[in-house]
Each structure stands twice: as structure tokens, then as C-alpha cells.
């Protein structure tokens, strides 16, 4: 559990989420890096995971005995970098180098680029199979640690996701918790129109998973759901988190232009004002 009790409350997670959102807008602007909308929809989920749920050792983040987290939607790299920095995995000033020449903070995470990121992601459909491998290892070693994988809805287009879904169920990997950042958009359109994704929760249920559906921006609901996932259910669990792409910045919300658009200096200021940061 989080060693800093001050940041355990809903209020405090909401507060840090605002700071992270402000940072993401700034990082996108300074690094001229896309995928801001995709990063913004993950912030509350990451906040709850890192400030409330994950049992991680900041000094030894790859420890097999501790929980592991994989950002399978690697295009939201800025969100995991900002989360890890705010949590103290590495210095905040490193975030200023994001997507710049010579930086280790690539627009899609490189393996072990910073403490807290072990797995390379960016091509979709890779995180869950790797997470299952770690979970299987935990079972074989009788470690109680769990593996959390954050995916996007567009990512569920990938066949590898469903290969993994079947393997996790047949091998009763109840130490795996997947979360889908269901922001209803993918790169070029509505995720339910491009491929028949819906009903997403029911699909996973039929694949043999424990399924939950939450408001992915409701900190309290996320906490309640994540804290109540049974530990020995013999089934993997998945949370379909309904989110809004670009969440938190009024002029970016549910506007898919922000999959690729870079905010101007003016827009950065406007966003920060909205977030109450300036």
C-alpha cells in the first residue's frame, strides 16, 4: 500500500490528477508530441492505481514480489511518465525532456527507460500477453503480487488481445487485472463504428473474465471497484472504464482532433486556468 497516507483520499487523488493533467498539456506543447487526448483519459485511472491500489516498491519497481503495471496503450506514454514522476519514481525535471532529442522519454515507452517502465509498448495488443506471463510466473513462484494492464478500446481490435483473454481464463489467472480506458475513440473514428466492439463488457464476460463497468473519472468508484476485486476467484478481472478522451480540458473533451493535435502556448495557459493551476 501507499506509504504516504496523505495522498490516499479521493480529494488528494483528484488534486494530483489535476496537476498531472496540467503537466500533460505542457509536455505535449513543449515536446510537440501527439496523443494528448489519449493520455488525458487515463489520468484518473493511473491516479487511483498509483496512489491507492498498487503495492509497488519505488526503489525496486521491477521486483517480482511486488505488483506490476503495464501501460499497454503506449501512445499515452506521457501519462505514465507524469504519474511516475509525481509519485517519486524519478525527478520531475526529467519530464521537461519528454519527446526531445537525446531524451529517454520516448513518445512510446522504451524498455526500462525510466524506473517503473519495464515493458516496451506502443504497438497495441502486446501488454496483456506480457502481463499474463508475469502473472503466470507469480502463480508458479507462489507470489501474491498482481499484474495490472491498462489498455485502450481501440487496442481491442487486435487479435492478440483475445488470444490473451482466452489464455488467462483457461489458466485461471486471477492475479491479472486489466483495465480498458473506454474513451469511445480510436485514431480515426468512433471505436464502436470502426469495428463492432460493443458490448465490450459482455464480450469479456463471455470470455470467462470477472467484469466490472465504472465511470473512469470517478475516483471513488474506481477505488471501490479495484479494492473489491476478489483475490482468489480463479478468474482474471477486467474493468471497462468509461472515459472521455481529452478529459479535464473543456475544449479537448470528446474531440478526436486531440489524438494528434498539439496545444499552442495559449491553449496551455487556458487549460491550466481551467484546471485551477494558475
Amino acid at each position, binding site marked *: 500500500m501507499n506509504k504516504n497516507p496523505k495522498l490516499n483520499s479521493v480529494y488528494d487523488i483528484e488534486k494530483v490528477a489535476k496537476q498531472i493533467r496540467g503537466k500533460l498539456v505542457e509536455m505535449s506543447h513543449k515536446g510537440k508530441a501527439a496523443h494528448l487526448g489519449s493520455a488525458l483519459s487515463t489520468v484518473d485511472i493511473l491516479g487511483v492505481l498509483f496512489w491507492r491500489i498498487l503495492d509497488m516498491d519505488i526503489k525496486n519497481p521491477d521486483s517480482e514480489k511486488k505488483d506490476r503495471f503495464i501501460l499497454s496503450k503506449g501512445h499515452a506514454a506521457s501519462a505514465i511518465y507524469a504519474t511516475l514522476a509525481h509519485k517519486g519514481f524519478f525527478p520531475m525535471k526529467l519530464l521537461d525532456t519528454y519527446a526531445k532529442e537525446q531524451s529517454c522519454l520516448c513518445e512510446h515507452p522504451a524498455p526500462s527507460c525510466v524506473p517503473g517502465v519495464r515493458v516496451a509498448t506502443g504497438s497495441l495488443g502486446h501488454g496483456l500477453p506480457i502481463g499474463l506471463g508475469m502473472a503466470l*510466473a507469480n502463480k508458479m513462484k507462489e507470489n501474491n503480487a498482481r499484474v495490472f494492464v491498462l489498455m485502450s478500446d481501440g487496442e481491442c481490435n487486435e487479435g492478440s488481445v483475445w488470444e490473451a483473454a482466452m*489464455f488467462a481464463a483457461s489458466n485461471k489467472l486471477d492475479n491479472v487485472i486489466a483495465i480498458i480506458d473506454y474513451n469511445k475513440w480510436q485514431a480515426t473514428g468512433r471505436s464502436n463504428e470502426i469495428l463492432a466492439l460493443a458490448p465490450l463488457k459482455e464480450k469479456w464476460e463471455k470470455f470467462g473474465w470477472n467484469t466490472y463497468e465504472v465511470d473512469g473519472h470517478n475516483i471513488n468508484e474506481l477505488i471501490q471497484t479495484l479494492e473489491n476485486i476478489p483475490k482468489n476467484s480463479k478468474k482474471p478481472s477486467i474493468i471497462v472504464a468509461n472515459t472521455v478522451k481529452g478529459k479535464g480540458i473543456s475544449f479537448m473533451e470528446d474531440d478526436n482532433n486531440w489524438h494528434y493535435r498539439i496545444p499552442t502556448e495559449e491553449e496551455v495557459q487556458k487549460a491550466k486556468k481551467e484546471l485551477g493551476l494558475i
Partner: protein
Amino acid sequence: MRNAFADELTKIGKENEKVVMLSADIGNRLFDNYKEKNPERFYNCGVAEQNTIGLAAGLAMSGFRPIAYTITPFITTRVYQQIRIDLCYNNVPVIVVGVGSGLSYSELGPTHHSTEDITIMRTLPNMTVLCPADANEARGALRAALKHDGPVYFRLGKKNEPLFHKDVPKFEIGKPIVMTQGEDVCILSVGNILPEAMDASKLLKEKGVSAQVVSFHTVKPLNKDFLKKTFSKFKIVATLEEHNLKGGFGSAVAEWLIDEEKDYNSKLVRFGVKDMFFTIIGKQPFARKYFNIDSVSIAKRIIKVLK
């Protein structure tokens, strides 16, 4: 080769608790002994190769030594990106084993042929490419691969190939094994095609040509010192592989030779498969004759080049 692989794996499985066998629903009965002795370290991952490679990566990141196994095209071309990112970019010690490589399963048709696997595997950073030549070499190669700290592509043939090593040879990654000594010609043979090289050397001897045969089992990393010595000594250096000439072992040697920017007075002759889908029905020996990579064709061409 595959039976020896399974047998060696069974032995290793007992000694090394880190070994985990992942089969993509192949090897019916082949791994029964392994499974019996190590039931908790065998997983049939189903006909789901992408997930199999990802799983292997995750297991390796947790300290295990996974082996991902199925028929070559399904564990190479089918899952190239998983190998590239999950294994090579993450740089984890996973052994990817393709069985029935080259034209081993010739009669099954091009879906089951693999004549581009060496090309695509050797171009991946961090990857080691091993092509054992017979059952005993496969045993040694497996043990060496398990000691290597990084991803390994392991190119197996099928079963009942001729045995050339009486015992398990001392196998070191990157160290070619000289099978027969010779003076005029050196045949660098990669993997399961070794019997053709051995027979060709006999045919050449009958014609008064002294041929050295080498099992050049490690295509990557390429042993450049060995190549330098070979090109300095022999009039002809022949590369032999049951694999497309484009991008395979012969190409690797040619790339090296050009980059040497040096005149060796030695001719490079490449033997391999033409750039085509082989749709004519026939078993492996028939296919080798078709592509002129059988012993008779090899000897004939070498004699022609010598003249």
C-alpha cells in the same frame, strides 16, 4: 532433431527449474516425458502464437527461461512483431524454436515451408540465430542457448536426419564446427542441410577436389575471424542453406565480404532456395534436387566454378 530436442529438454527440465515450455498446440506426444516430469512447467498455449511470445516475454521478465515452440512459419513470420518488440526490444532470454524448418515439411506446401526465417531473424537487434545441423548438435545448442542472456532463434529440422556427431559436440555460440578437413574448397553449411554438404565433399573427393565442410550453426553473431581465415585459405567458399538466397546466410557472408573491402582471391558461391513458393508436391530430397542444393548439384557446380 526434434526428438533429440524434446529428450534434451526433458533432461534439462529436471535440472533447471527455470525452464518453461510453451507449445502452440504442436508436438503431439513429443513432450509427454517432459510433461510427466515437469507438469507445472509445460503450457499448451493453443493456436495463439502472438500470445505465446508475449507470455514468454513476461515469464522471462520474472526470471524464467521460456521456450516457445511450434512449426517454423507459425513462430517466425506469424509473430514477427512480437519477437521484434516483446523479445528483442525488451531484450529478454527467450528461446524461439521453429520445428520443420526450411523444406523439412516440403510435401505440406508453402504454408509450412520456412525459407525466409533466417533473413528476418538475423536482422533483429539483440537476436542470436542458431541452426543446429543434427540431433547431437541440437542438444548442445539447446544447452548453450539456455545459458545465453538474450533472445535466441533456434532453427530445428524434423526427425530422423542423419547423425554426424557421434556425441554431443562442444557447442559454443558463434563458434563453427569443422566436420571434415580439406584444402581446395570450404563448404559452410547452415543447419539441417549438412548431409548434402557431407555427401558433396565425398563426391568432390572422387573428382580429386579436397573439400572442407563446416557446420556454421550460428548465423548471428557472424564469426568474422573464422570467415577471414576461411576466405584467406580456400579457392572457393560455398555457403549452403535450405533457405531463400535473398537475405539468408549466404547474404550475410556476402555482406561481410563486401564490407571487408579486401581482395581475398577466393570465390564466394552461394547455394540456397530460389525466390518462389514451392508448390510442386514432393518430399525434402525432391525439393533439394529441384533447387540444386542436393549433394550432386553442389559438387557439380563447385567443379564448374573451379574450372
